[in-house]
């Protein structure tokens, strides 16, 4: 079956939905069919998978721990800083 003239642009816009598994079966088949013959979109699918994998693996700053000072303002406010006490 011949593809539609806008298949390429549509596929490029939906690569993220594709790897997320969000496309309906008909839309998924449309993208699969186009990507079989389109080098750019075939590469795009692999690139989007690689992107999600790489971003998911970003650990942030190595060994980052919350600073010891994280509760300083809470301690300074004390029980009087909580609404229940303020409303009492």
């Amino acid at each position, binding site marked *: 079956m011949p593809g539609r003239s806008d298949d390429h642009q549509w596929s490029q*816009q939906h*690569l*993220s*939905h594709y790897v*997320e598994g*969000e496309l309906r079966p008909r839309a998924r088949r449309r993208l699969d069919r186009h990507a079989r013959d389109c080098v*750019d979109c075939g*590469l*795009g699918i*692999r*690139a*989007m*998978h*690689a*992107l*999600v*994998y*790489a*971003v*998911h*693996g*970003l*650990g*942030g*700053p*190595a060994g*980052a*721990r*919350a*600073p010891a*000072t*994280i*509760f*300083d*303002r*809470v*301690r300074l*406010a*004390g*029980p009087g*800083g*909580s*609404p*229940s*006490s303020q*409303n009492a």
Partner: protein
Amino acid sequence: MPPLAGQRDADAAATEASLIARAQAGDVSAFERLSSAHADRLFMLLLRLLGDRTEAEDVAQEVMLRAWRGISRFRGNSSYFTWLYRIAVNEANRALEKRGRRPPGRPIGADELQLPGSAADDPSRQAETSELRRALAQALAELPPPLRTAIVLRDVEGLSTQEAAEIAGIGQAAFKSRLHQARLRVRAAIGDEALVTSGG
């Protein structure tokens, strides 16, 4: 015999519920115990959203103060973690708005970020992964805050779409739209060949 996983989860939930009740009654130590369980992860989130350690430390303190002041209004409609994360995202966005009116700080360096172990442990790919780290850090830093929040919550933190949308304070459809936009921009910034070669 050690308790089963289900029993441990139930015990943890009961402990959290007890700590929430005590915190709502004004017990600071209960609040600290309750929140410290999420403190490291929350700080990492702020580092990723803000890209500046000093600013993240300041905002983390503010998040805890706001959570403490608001704990009596926590009704348990979401998990405590989700509620705390939502405060963190709001405070990070507030800080980014303020930052828009002054020069940006130094972003977290690419070398400070970690990639998945399988790539990072292979010496032959260290140069490529180092370059990918740099490019990813740069691309994420250049995203508008709403798009950065979406990709950090969903792809970096690995939260479900439902939970991430709730934390971002938007509907799931709007969240997905932001996530897809963010991925497209990062992909465009790095390039397909580089992603497949370095990250695949």
